[in-house]
């Protein structure tokens, strides 16, 4: 089967692209001068600063610095995170887990909602549900995530107090073990209903806010591919066999419409990673986004670079998975062409 060969090729290309990403990011950071400030204290003398530069090899030419940085990266050393006051590698796992948890729940909202709405819109084309779904999807694509978050906070947090802010109630959070780092999963694993309820209450609002925009993308793709498959001859052929309409839609139209939608689901994950930055800020969710924002505001270059690298890596891996899923969903696809 060609899928394996394709997978090997893509995986081989992955480090190359990551190398490209790292070069771009590194060059950008060095554009604005030495990152020595993150290690320095305000009362240091120029001599002390120079010593510091020498220590972190910041006095070398940029390509050499890059080589050192890359070497560090390969050994698992991503530098010192000024905002966390700890090595980047020590912190990044926790932050990543928090963001991934949020993104996964948002993806769940987006995929389930998107496919359902898109299917209805595609089947009932040019009727009320279709118009509603289309408008809804355009609205979703136009709503600034950070603003939408604020908008929901006012009633549900401020007035009704249904959903709390943050990732957890710390007292409850501390009662359970965290083998996976995903609060919801951990609470289920530890069979602690209080923790479960706590984790769910915290994640619902940010997941809905984050998922809304991604859902918009999925709805429009699902709708247009449903419209396309509904007009395929095999759908008529299925009707001509005497199958009930429900089965015709489910088994013949929707199944094939999911294939192009799969690609968009991959792309929407990029959207989720991006949107997470604003959502984490608003909901005080201790993930990568919140981390990088404070890094940006304090010029913490090591953290910014680590953040860009890790999100790009996740993004690429997800797109790769989607491509492979695509090959399994659509038997006609010849990968790589």
């Amino acid at each position, binding site marked *: 089967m060609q899928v394996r060969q394709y997978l090997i090729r893509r995986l081989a290309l992955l480090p190359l692209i990551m190398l490209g990403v790292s070069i*771009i990011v590194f060059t950008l950071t060095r554009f604005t001068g030495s990152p020595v400030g993150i290690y320095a204290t305000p009362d240091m003398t120029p001599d002390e600063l120079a010593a510091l530069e020498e220590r972190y090899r910041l006095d070398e030419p940029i390509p050499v610095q890059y080589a050192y940085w890359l070497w560090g990266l390969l050994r698992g050393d991503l530098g010192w995170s000024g905002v966390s006051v700890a090595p980047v590698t020590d912190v990044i796992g926790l932050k990543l887990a928090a963001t991934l948890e949020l993104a996964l729940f948002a993806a769940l909202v987006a995929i389930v909602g998107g496919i359902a709405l898109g299917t209805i819109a595609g089947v009932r084309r040019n009727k009320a549900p279709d118009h509603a779904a289309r408008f809804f999807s355009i609205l979703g694509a136009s709503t600034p995530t950070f603003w939408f978050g604020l908008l929901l906070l006012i009633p549900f947090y401020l007035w009704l107090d249904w959903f709390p802010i943050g990732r957890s109630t710390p007292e409850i959070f501390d009662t359970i073990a965290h083998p996976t780092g995903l609060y919801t999963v951990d609470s289920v694993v530890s069979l602690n209903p209080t923790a479960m309820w706590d984790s769910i209450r915290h994640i619902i609002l940010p997941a809905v806010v984050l998922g809304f925009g991604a859902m918009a993308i999925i709805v429009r793709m699902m709708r247009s591919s449903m419209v396309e498959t509904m007009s395929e001859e095999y759908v008529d052929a299925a009707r001509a066999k005497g199958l009930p309409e429900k089965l015709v839609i489910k088994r013949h139209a929707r199944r094939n419409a999911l294939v192009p939608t799969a690609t968009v689901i991959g792309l929407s994950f990029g959207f989720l990673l991006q949107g997470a930055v*604003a959502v984490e800020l608003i909901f005080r969710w201790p993930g990568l986004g919140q981390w990088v924002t404070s890094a940006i505001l304090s010029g913490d270059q090591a953290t910014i670079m680590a953040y860009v690298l890790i999100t790009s890596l996740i993004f690429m891996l997800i797109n790769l998975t989607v491509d492979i899923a695509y090959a399994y969903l659509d038997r006609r696809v010849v990968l790589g062409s």
Partner: protein
Amino acid sequence: MTMTSENVTISSESQHPRKLRSRASSVRWARRREVMREVLRNPLTVIGVVIITLFLLMAAMAPLLTEANQPDPYQSPRDWANIDAAPGVEGHVLGTDSTGGDVLYGIIWGSRLSLQLSLTVVISTLIIGTFVGSVAAMRGGRIDNFLMRVVDVFLAIPELIFALAIAAILGPSFRNIILALAVVFWVKYARIIRGEIIRVKQTDYVAAARVVGDSTWNVYRKDVLPNAVTPLVVQATLDMGNVVLIGAALSYIGLAQAGLTEWGAMVSAGQSGILAGQWWVSTFAGVAILLWALAFNLVGDGLRDALDPKTEGR
């Protein structure tokens, strides 16, 4: 098969060739008008066009609508007497923020910033992207391979995150946000136009032009580009809105100068007041962003439906 109403028949007296030339351009214009009519048949598109027109008017007439603040019109005038004033307070139709900045003033002058942002970013990236994508697709081979690997690298980083990193490194200023977005956005266009050109290059009308013996440049200019450009136009329209969304997100995070009449920055500025019940600053600024993005999304969506051959006839 459709016979359109625009069939311009040439009466015998107009068969004189010189008249023909001017008729040709009028036929072309008639065709364009017909396409426009097709686009505007969708009521949602019309709504989008109306909103955009209103925004443009607002931007153009900003100095007439409100008196420009000196020395920097993109900073709201401070009315220290009316801090956190609710909408409707004398002289502040939409209220003021915690530094006494007028919300309405911010929204009006913010439209200029948004226009500047989206026009600069979209036009510059459209040119760069079209150039890179065209070179890759028309040349093919190694050049194509190299350019596409570069594009792959750029695409590997989610655009907001990329822009975020660049803007963060360049330092907080609105100009840097524009620059960051420009660095990020061209890739998408390069990829779209490359794909379209490769598709168009395989069509029979390009083959027909080659049988005739026309030069590559002419084939590109007359056959390839005009037929490849539609999805790019659609994407650019959508991006006129998207750019403002992302730009606003960047300023919201804090990457624009403080106090700027940029809508995202205004949402951010109003945020702290929300818990105290001062909802208006964030809400109105957010509505402005939403409407801007919505308008361009509506028009872009309408264009896609009307122009994209894949959805034609649906």
